[in-house]
Structure formats: C-alpha cells, structure tokens
C-alpha cells in the first residue's frame, strides 16, 4: 500500500502542482441482522482504492479510482491535476494552507477482541437470542437486531514528506422493538437508535452493552407506551438521557462549529452556521456549566471520531469549543485555519472512503461531565419531564431552531418517575437551550456515544462521529409543540 501511495504521489507531482496528498485504503465490513427471528442482513464487503488530491494553479483537484494498476493510478493523478486546473475557470484567490510538520507514523486502534475472528455463528446466535427475547413480550409486532464491524487501513502520503499508516476497527450493535396497536406505532431501541452504540472498539463492545440483558425491559416499554399518557404541551424543566444529549450536541454544537460551514462551503447543501467569525470569544453559548471540546485523541475515549492523524496528515488534537459557557473555538482544516489567521489546523479533516475528498467532520465533539450526581440532576427541581432515546431530529440550515422527538418520556416529581409519557418532543433555539442548562451529571454517567450516520458534502459523505455526554437538566424548555396540531 505504501508503495502504491508513493507512486501515486510521484505521478501527481506535475508542473504547477504545489501540494499533493494520496490516501490508499483497504476496508472490510461485516453486517449481520435478524428480523422477527429470521436472518436479516448477512453480508460482507471489501473495498480498495486510492484518492489523489492536488493543489495546482492555486486550486484543488481530486480524483479517485479503484484501478490500482500503474496505468490506473497515473490516469487518476493526471485527472486530479486537470480538474484542479479547470477549477481556475472560477477562481478568486489561490488556496493557502496553514503550516503542518512532516509526520511518519504507524498507528493501530485498540481492539481487544478482533470482531472478524469471532465466528458469524456466535454473532448471529446472540442476535437471534435477543430477537427471541424481544418477541416474548406480548404486543411486540416487530423485533430487529443488528451488528456491524469495520476495519480500514489507510496509508497517507503527502508532498511535504508525511507517511502515515493507520488502521481503525469499529464495532456497533443494537436492537429495536416495535409495537403497533390502536393506530399507533411505538418503538424502543437499545442502546440507542441508529443501530445502537458504535465505538472504536472490537467485539468487546458487544460484551459491554449486554444486549440480551436489556431486551425484556425495552420490549415491555414499547408495548406499555400505548397506554401511556400523551406528553403534555408547555414549558417544563427537561432532563435528557446521555444518548439524546449526545445527538443534541451533534446538531447544535458539532455542526455549527465546522469552520467550512461558517465560511460558506456548504451553503448549497448542509447549510451555513449562526457562529459567524465575529462570535468567536464573544458569544455566550451556554450557561457556566457548559464545557465542550472537539477531541480526536484516544485519551478522550474510543469514539467514532478517534484517530491518530486526520486525512490531511494533521495529528489528533483536543480543542476547546465552549469554555465555561463561552464560545472559544471552531473545528478547522489547514485551508480554513489559514483563512482565519490560525497558526495550525486542529485536525478534523476526514473522508468516508478512498473515493471521497476529506472535509471538516466532527471528531468527538463532547459535552464534558458536570459535578452532580444523577440523583441531584433528577431531584434538583420538584417537577420535570425526562426523555430517553432519539426518535426524530431536525434543525435549520444555520443551526438555530431545532426539534427533537424521543421514544419515551417520564414525568418526574421530586426526583421520582411518576408516569410514563408517549410521543415526547421538545424544541428551541440553540443558544437559548444551552444557556438554560441547569445541571450536568458527573463522569460516572458520561458515555462516548457514536452517531454512525452524519451526512455532509456533495457528493454526500456519511461518516461516524463521537459525542460524550451524561444526563443533564435544562430549565423552561418548550415541550410538545410537534403534536399540538
């Protein structure tokens, strides 16, 4: 792979090319599932290819191919350069990159149990047992389970001399219990929606989340939701579980801090951001309790956004985003860092595959834990609504107005659950929401959640991101507008 990458780099360095980088990737997936006791997805996928990015005549060009012969690579390199030169047909200025040192490294993500060495029989047997457990509950009309594993080895080389060999292994698993009755569809998922929990781990993740143990309660809740009261409409103190808060962080902190969005790169598709440059170090994003970081280092945890180097050869870093409620940082690339006068990229450029261009993507954008016990979060007010597990999510293209729905809600009185609520939703404006943060549970309850399906870019790239969060409480939040009719 290294030899292929170096040959491609050599081929890309043509007259007028001032910078080039190459990524050669070999990836492998296994995807398994069940549905109502029968096999669902049972598949594997292998892919290999090369992506070549060049700066020529001050403009970017990128070409990717699955043809790894010498001729294929030379053609792709030539095409990348042609494309860059054609970009000059609509150029305002030459691209400038923030400086970065040359790096030579090999890194393999921690993986205690290689998921590809665990037999498919064992994996399907667990899923089948979970599926069976879900269907034990009378009223469950559809049970689905899934597991997905991926290993990708990437060799990155660049014209500044970097040679970086990284291998990442990710695992994910989860289940869903649906119940249809009386003209309503209710659902419970575990450990999260979107196919469960996803982390930069091996099969040990599957042991840790213990799907079988949690199946009976989830199945029972899916059925019981039909007889629960409709979540009321009004303003309430709101407590969110960690998985829902992780998605709230993703949508209302993670996306708006992408500096390419701020600068307009995504204006036609994913949108822009309310976090215009004048707001850096001047905006009160949240209450004093709110501290958020963008951290790709393994020290932060085994997240979907954990790596050693990003896809333009910048080492993984931790960057403060919100410090004591104040907005203090963006996620940057070498190009966008230079555009705002920063001395260095904070290393967030990632591509979904060899075929796609690296973009600024969330690494692990996490809300740091607070100091309160879980009991204090729940009992700190006399009356609140608690919501668990995302069911729907939507936010405007500048990331101000959001609305989320959850699978289940509970009315909380004096810290205790007093009644189950169905169809809970809440909505608000990003900065108002984070400024209403009144309590965040401590590190004992902090989990690095994985969101496997973050979309951005044209052509669209769907990538996994990480979000650490523990349950938290927010004051005076609008609840129930989605069903107000």
């Amino acid at each position, binding site marked *: 792979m290294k030899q292929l990458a170096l040959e491609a780099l050599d081929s890309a360095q043509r007259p007028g090319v001032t910078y080039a980088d190459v990524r050669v990737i070999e990836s492998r997936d296994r995807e398994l599932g069940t549905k109502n006791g029968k096999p*669902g997805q049972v598949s594997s996928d292998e892919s290999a290819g090369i992506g070549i990015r060049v700066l020529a005549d001050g403009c970017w060009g990128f070409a990717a191919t699955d043809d790894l012969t010498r001729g294929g690579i030379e053609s792709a390199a030539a095409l990348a350069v042609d494309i860059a030169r054609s970009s000059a047909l609509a150029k305002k200025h030459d691209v400038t990159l923030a400086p970065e040192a040359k790096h030579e490294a090999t890194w393999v993500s921690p993986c205690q149990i290689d998921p590809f060495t665990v037999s498919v029989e064992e994996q399907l047997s667990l899923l089948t047992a979970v599926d069976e457990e879900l269907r034990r509950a009378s009223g469950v009309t559809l049970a689905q389970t899934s597991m997905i594993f991926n290993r990708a080895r990437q060799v990155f080389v660049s014209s500044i001399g970097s040679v970086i060999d990284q291998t990442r292994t990710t695992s994910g698993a989860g289940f869903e219990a649906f119940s249809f009755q009386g003209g309503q569809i209710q659902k419970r998922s575990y450990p999260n929606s979107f196919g469960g929990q996803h982390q930069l781990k091996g099969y040990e993740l599957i042991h840790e989340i213990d799907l079988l143990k949690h199946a009976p309660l989830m199945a029972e809740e899916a059925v019981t939701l039909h007889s629960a009261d409709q979540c009321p409409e009004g303003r309430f103190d709101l407590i969110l579980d960690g998985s829902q808060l992780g998605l709230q962080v993703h949508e209302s902190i993670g996306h708006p801090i992408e500096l390419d969005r701020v600068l307009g790169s995504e204006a036609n598709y994913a949108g822009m951001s309310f976090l215009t440059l004048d707001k850096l170090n001047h905006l009160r994003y949240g209450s004093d309790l709110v501290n958020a970081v963008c951290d790709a280092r393994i020290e932060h945890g085994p997240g979907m956004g954990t790596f050693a180097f990003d896809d333009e050869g910048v080492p993984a870093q931790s960057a403060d985003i919100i410090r004591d409620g104040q907005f203090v940082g963006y996620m940057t690339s070498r190009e966008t860092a230079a555009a705002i006068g920063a001395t260095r990229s904070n290393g967030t450029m990632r591509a979904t595959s060899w075929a796609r261009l690296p973009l600024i993507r969330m690494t692990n954008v996490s809300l740091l834990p607070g100091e309160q016990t879980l009991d204090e979060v729940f009992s700190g007010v006399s009356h609140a609504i608690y919501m668990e597990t995302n069911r729907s999510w939507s936010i405007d293209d500048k990331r101000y107005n959001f609305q989320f729905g959850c699978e289940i809600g509970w009315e909380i009185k004096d810290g205790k659950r007093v009644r189950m609520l169905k169809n809970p939703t809440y909505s608000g404006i990003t900065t108002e929401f984070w400024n209403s943060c009144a309590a965040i549970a401590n590190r004992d309850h902090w989990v690095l959640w994985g969101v496997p399906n973050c979309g951005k870019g*044209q052509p669209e790239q769907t990538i996994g991101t990480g979000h650490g969060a523990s349950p938290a409480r927010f004051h005076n939040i609008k609840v129930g507008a989605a069903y107000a009719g």
Partner: protein
Amino acid sequence: MPVESNRAEILSQSQSEELFGAVQKAAAALGVPEVEALFGAHFGALTRFANNTIHQNVAEQDRWLSVRVALDHRTARATTNRFDSDSIRRAVEQALALARSAAADPELLPLAEASAISETKRFDVATAAATPDHRGRAVAEAIRMVESAGQTAAGIYSTGQSIEALYNSRGVAAWHAETMAQFSITAMADDSSGWAKASAVSYESMDVLALARSAAEKARLSIDPAEIAPGRYTVILEPAAVLDLVGQMFGDFSATAVADSRSFLTDRLGKKLFGDNIQISDDVAHPLQAGVPFDGEGVPRRKLTLVEAGVPRELAYARSSAHRAGVEPTGHGFPLPNEVGEAPLNIVVAGGTTTVEEMIASTDRGVLVTRLWYIREVDPYEKIMTGMTRDGTFLIENGRLTRGLRNFRFNQGIIELLNNVEALSPSLRASGEEAFDMVVPAMKVRGFNFTEVTRF
C-alpha cells in the same frame, strides 16, 4: 481507468457477462449451484462552488461485484471491488461461508427465473464524456450571473454514469447503463437567499443560466425578510418542496412494511385516505424518470397505481413478499438479504392545470415555499413530518408575492396535507435534497401547520 473523456459505458454488457462466467466457475468449483451476481460501476464528477469560486472539484470511479449464494434455505452476500479471479473466488467463498453460518429461512425462495425486461435508453454519450472544463465554464457563467446581481453563489454541477447488472445461475441477465447530470445553485444576498436545482439524463436538458437567474431573483425578492407568527397558512409548495415532503411516505408503500406493521398504510389500504385529486403512480418507464428497469433479484419493474382518487391501491412487492401474499412480484425488491423488502422508486404524482402564478393570484394570504430542509418523521402512523423552510419563503397577500419571510419550522401530517390540496400545477421532473428525484407538480395546500419561526 478514469474515463472523463470516454463516451463508452465503464462496465459493458459483454464485460459483465464475462465476469459472471468467472463467478459461476468459482461457484461450481465450490459446489454451489445457485449463485447470483450484482455488478455495479460508477463514474461521477462534481464541480462544487461557493463564495463565487470553485472550491471543491472531484471525480471518482468505482466498480463492484456482489455475490449472493443460496443453499439449503440459507443465503448471504459478499461484495468486492476487485475483479481479478482470486478476488472473485474469495467473494464466492465468503458468501458461502456466511450463508452456511446463517439460520435457515424456510420461506427463502430459489433464485429468480429470467423475465423479459423492457429496455430504457438513458445513456447520453455527451454527458458521460463531460469534461472538467465543460463543468467549469458552465459554473463560471452561473457565478457571473449571480455576482452581477450583487449576490454570492454556491452550488454544484455534476455529470456521470452508472451501470447496474444482475445475473444468476437460472438465466437472469439484466444490464442497465444510465447517465445523470445535476445542477444546483443557491444565491445569497445579505439577509436572504434563493435556490434552484435540476437533474436530467442529458446535461443538454438543463438550462444552467435559467436556474441561476431564478435563484438570484428569489434572493432579490426576499431581502429584509419579515417575521410573521407561526400558525396554519395556505401554502404554495413548489415541486421540490412537494417531493421532499411527500417523498417521505413512499417507503411505506411496501408490502413488507405493511406486513411488519411499520407502515402508515397498515389497516388503511383500499380506504379513502387522501383527497380525490391525488393520483400517484410508480413508473420506471415514464419519459421524465430515471433508474434501473429491474429490481435487486432481476425482476422487471412494472407500473404501479399507488394512489387512485385519494385511495391507496397497490403496494410494491419483492418476490418473497409477493409469495407470502399469493400475488405476482412487482419488481421493486432490494438485493437480498435485507430487512426492508421493497419500495417504489420512480414516483409520478399526477399534476393539474393551474400554474404557480395562478395559484399565487388566487391566494388572499399565504406563503410560497421554494424548498424544505431536514425533514424527519415525528409520528410514523399519522405520518407527521417536521422540517424547515429554506432559501426562498415568501408572503402572499391579495394575490401577489409581497415580501420575503423568515423561515418556519413545520409539523405537518402528510395524510392531512394530501386532503387539503386545492390546486396542482402540471408535473415536471424535480430534484430536492431530502428524497429521490420524482415527477411532481407544485401544490396549493390549505391549513399547512407552521409551528415555529427561526432567526433568519
């Protein structure tokens, strides 16, 4: 083998046949009699612009072979993007090993038999051969148009080709090649924006400058947007807004989804659900449609009457769901194995005769919506969707557009919406971002439920 200047298909029918021969040979060597191979190939190039400059400009080529074996009521799939004989053999071996590990499914059908598939010619050699310079010049012209209005342009111009082929050991031999071009543009003024998008088999069918002009005009007309209170309004949804919202329901026109009780059509098929003026079909052969004329098992797609005079009539059936229901498959199944079954993908919503201008002229007070964004399902059975308006939202007063509006969040049931349609424009091929391209009209709808307003 990047083929930017190659007018031919990147994976020809004869190459596909040859590759399937290699798959069959590998399967025979392993004692596997039942084998299916799905071939795919894609070359796509996309020129992306923002801040009135080309900032991302890419091309990609990938080809893949996906092998499915079936034995003893077990099936599994293995995919590779390497076409050498060792990789093909390994893919067959992996599919076989996975299948042997899976539990038996007594309802698993043998592989499909061959059926006649109507040819759909959707390959435009000029679009397949479009160069970076071609896209760059077109983008530069569009930018100049928006810039001359004192605005900022962002968007994409893409061209490319896709091949999909399906062969199996029972004689299915289906191959389809298609080109596609897309142009999308957002024009931004200080506090407003406008948007336009089109897609076509041939780039010659798209008027890039007309799209740029339309986006710029919307941005100009919506400067200094006003905030009005959320509530129920008469809205005129332009075709892209219709497809992005109404498009969220077509996954439910699946026999498997109904059998699983996860479709809003559960217990509702054949009952009056929408207004009399709602007629929807699925028709891969429609002249404005695109797509493959066979499904994931090689069954030819047939036309479906999904909604007739407001009544949901037909569902899409894959072979397995059809077998369970005792009907013929409709050719809408996804490649096996999968959990979701099937879905219609070539939607044609019948239009009317009212132009958007006539809809505006007949509206005392309402809202014109160019585009919707981030649409998600709030309630799966009532089909309540939430999302935002974007890039061109206007107040209509006394029969004319009077000013731009700050964008709304909506929470709107699709069933209710399709009961409140007062007028339809003629249908056209439309392209959005939240659902696949469709043939749809603009719609004038009463009582659309805006629940919140955002800050811009």
